[in-house]
């Protein structure tokens, strides 16, 4: 198995942190309340607090950055692209008719402070939940997650779809790594936008074919183990709500309540408050 895939699985394996021990259902609740709280603000400073919250969880869950580096980089590239694009375009849409504060010009394009703020807001609104999702993936046993979902009445087909996706995650890492190695050996290089596009274009077919093959094999394997009976009733290791989970529930409720209070009652966080101009 590729080192990236192994590192991902190793993270789940390290059940040493408090976040690893949190029941997957409670982690899901945490993700939902976090997502709502993060989404209702359009103030980059407040969203930075949410980012700080995820960073603290990441550190205390002992998720090493280098273990999730490829995924983190992909998210960062996406967010930086969004921020830059919005910096040049969003300002006009936000304050049509009012003067904008130009940071610098690039030909006919103008990067405005208003656009940059808006871009940052967009990026953090998308990036914060993705980052927490990455921590969730790195600290949750997919099988336990699926079992937990079944316990709260999620249809078994949906639990299984999630479980399969999570199970395929490390396998896809490996396939992607193999395909990338094969491309490098055959002289396909990923430098620059054109190079990256070329690499991606050429990888699609072998990636698709291999992923399909693996997904099918896993599908057949589970069928041979009576998955079709869908009789999930009792489990060898039953997911149980423990003390740490209750603490997390209280935390999630508090986070949501405080966020709603700040946004709806105090009226803070509906627009960027900091403007050097």
């Amino acid at each position: 198995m590729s080192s990236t895939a192994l590192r991902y699985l190793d993270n789940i394996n390290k059940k040493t942190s408090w976040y690893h021990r949190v029941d997957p259902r409670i982690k899901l609740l945490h993700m939902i309340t976090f997502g709502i709280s993060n989404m209702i603000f359009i103030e980059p400073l407040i969203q930075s607090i949410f980012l700080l919250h995820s960073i603290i969880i990441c550190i205390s869950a002992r998720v090493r950055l280098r273990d999730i580096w490829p995924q983190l980089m992909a998210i960062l590239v996406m967010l930086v692209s969004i921020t830059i694009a919005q910096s040049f375009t969003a300002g006009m849409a936000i304050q049509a008719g009012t003067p904008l504060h130009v940071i610098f010009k690039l030909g006919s394009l103008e990067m405005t402070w208003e656009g940059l703020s808006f871009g940052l807001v967009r990026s953090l609104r998308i990036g914060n939940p993705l980052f927490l999702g990455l921590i969730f993936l790195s600290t949750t046993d997919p099988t336990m997650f699926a079992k937990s979902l079944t316990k709260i009445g999620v249809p078994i087909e949906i639990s299984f779809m999630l479980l399969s996706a999570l199970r395929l995650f490390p396998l896809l890492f490996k396939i992607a790594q193999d395909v990338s190695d094969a491309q490098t050996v055959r002289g396909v290089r990923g430098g620059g936008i054109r190079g990256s596009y070329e690499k991606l274009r050429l990888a699609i077919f072998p990636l698709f074919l291999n992923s399909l093959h693996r997904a099918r094999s896993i599908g057949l394997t589970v069928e041979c183990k009576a998955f079709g009976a869908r009789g999930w009733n009792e489990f060898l290791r039953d997911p149980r709500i423990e003390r740490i989970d209750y603490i997390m529930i209280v935390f999630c409720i508090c986070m949501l309540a405080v966020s709603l209070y700040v946004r709806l009652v105090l009226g803070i966080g509906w627009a960027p408050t900091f403007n050097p101009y």
Partner: protein
Amino acid sequence: MGDEPSLVDVNLRIRKGEFVLLAGPSGSGKSTLCKCFNGLIPNFIKGSMSGDVFIDGLNTKQTKVYHLAEHIGMVFQNPEDNIFSLVVEDELAFGPENLGLAKQEIMKRVEQSIRSVGIEELRNSMTYAVSGGQKQKVAIASSLAMLPGILVLDEPTTDLDPVSEEEVATVLKKLTDTLNITIVVVEHELDELISIASRLIVMDQGRIVLDGTPREILGSCYEKLNLLGLRVPQCVEVAHMISERGFKMREFPLKLNETTSMLRGFFEKHPLLMKPVLSQDECKATNPIIINFKDVWFTYDEEKYALQNVNLDIRQGEFVAVIGQNGSGKSTLAKHIVGLLRPTKGKVIIDGNDTTKVDIGIITKIVGYIFQNPENQLFTPSTWEEVAFGLQREGVIEDEIQKRVTQVLNTVKLLNYKDRHPAILSRGEKRRLAVATALATASKVLILDEPTTGQDRTTLYGLLSLLSRLNKEHNTTIVMITHDMEIVPEFADRLIVMKDGQVVLDGPTMKVLSEKIDLLRSMRLKPPAISRLTTQINDIPMVHTMDDFKKIIEYCGVVHE
């Protein structure tokens, strides 16, 4: 896939407690037949099927697959595809949980299956962290937790090293002996399981062409098995050679010790009159060094070194085999040669280029890499374009591309398939195409990662003969990573043995096999059966290939009583 049916007129009855070995060349319908056993065909894999399959009296067409799963368990080829959970215990519980059993019953079944397969120490292990052999044992245990009366295994040892292969074979023997479970195993290689099997079924073009006990079939249908491209165990080949010399045997031998005692009897009556000239490793000591490892260390995770203190010189034109158990560092070594990995400490110099200092593009013009799974490295819509791809990227002029692609496709015998999509080629053809893509751009060094995986004898020997020809005629350096010890002395003139990231043995193949056979065995590597066989006969020199053994037989006389 073509319009030809995958199975034709199959009539088969398997009795309780039988151990059936299902053999046949690639594409002969073995796996399709297995998928009919547990109802995956026609319930999940669609197609047109006539006739009926009954398992424990249940018609598979009318019975749900999950219901059949309580009667018949299935283990697939790739250990990673067989396992769904992260923890071994969870994996074993997965089937019983699906059946909606009570927790007590689930626990009971998990315990039973752990004991049956003997994996007590793996109970709480992470499924991804155990060895290939252990993964297959977990997969077998996981199927057993469903309490099936029948267990079907589709090439369960293909990707495993000899030790893991032996582990799986031992477990299967234990299951038939103690639990009276009916076992059906699909295999290309008959070596490990032939002595355990009670019945051998051979398929070809979707039909059952041979069916009987292994002794009957291997004793009387040897020629046919060879024609079908099956790899007959070397001890069986030996028995045939001496029976052709008129040596009478009471029972056809299947096991190494049976063949050994038979050989002893043969050489008492047919002493070796003259020592024949046996194969020698070709010495390339005067050729220039093309691959040079200088005190190379490498780590993936900064915790454990995958390569330790590797010092190695490989010369132009050598055919080198690299062997070792799974995880011994073979693939890591190969990836250093092609520049995919760079040493943590030390230097790798390829044809004068330090891989840490030059662009990988320069290295890949010298070294071609044929991956274990050729599908990963083929990505254009036609065989022709696949070979032309590298040349076009290098900016070679069109006329030259036409000339070189034609030449290379001709060399690998794929010129007739030049317009075909690579995805529809057979596995053997895909490998040849991968060789062609490497040859078109990098002709000095070729690395083959596990070329034997999932290939029958005909395809495998076709590929290896091609490489041997390139090695001899074009002085191409070949580095072959393999678990298959029988092909090593036949093709490689140098053998490198790796263990825990270190090169522990390195030398001419015949010399290493002759002088270090005990060391190899102590490292749980299995030298070729013919080497193990001839080392036990005092009257003849030790040989490592069947060609050499044939020469010995030819030089034997007859003692007239």
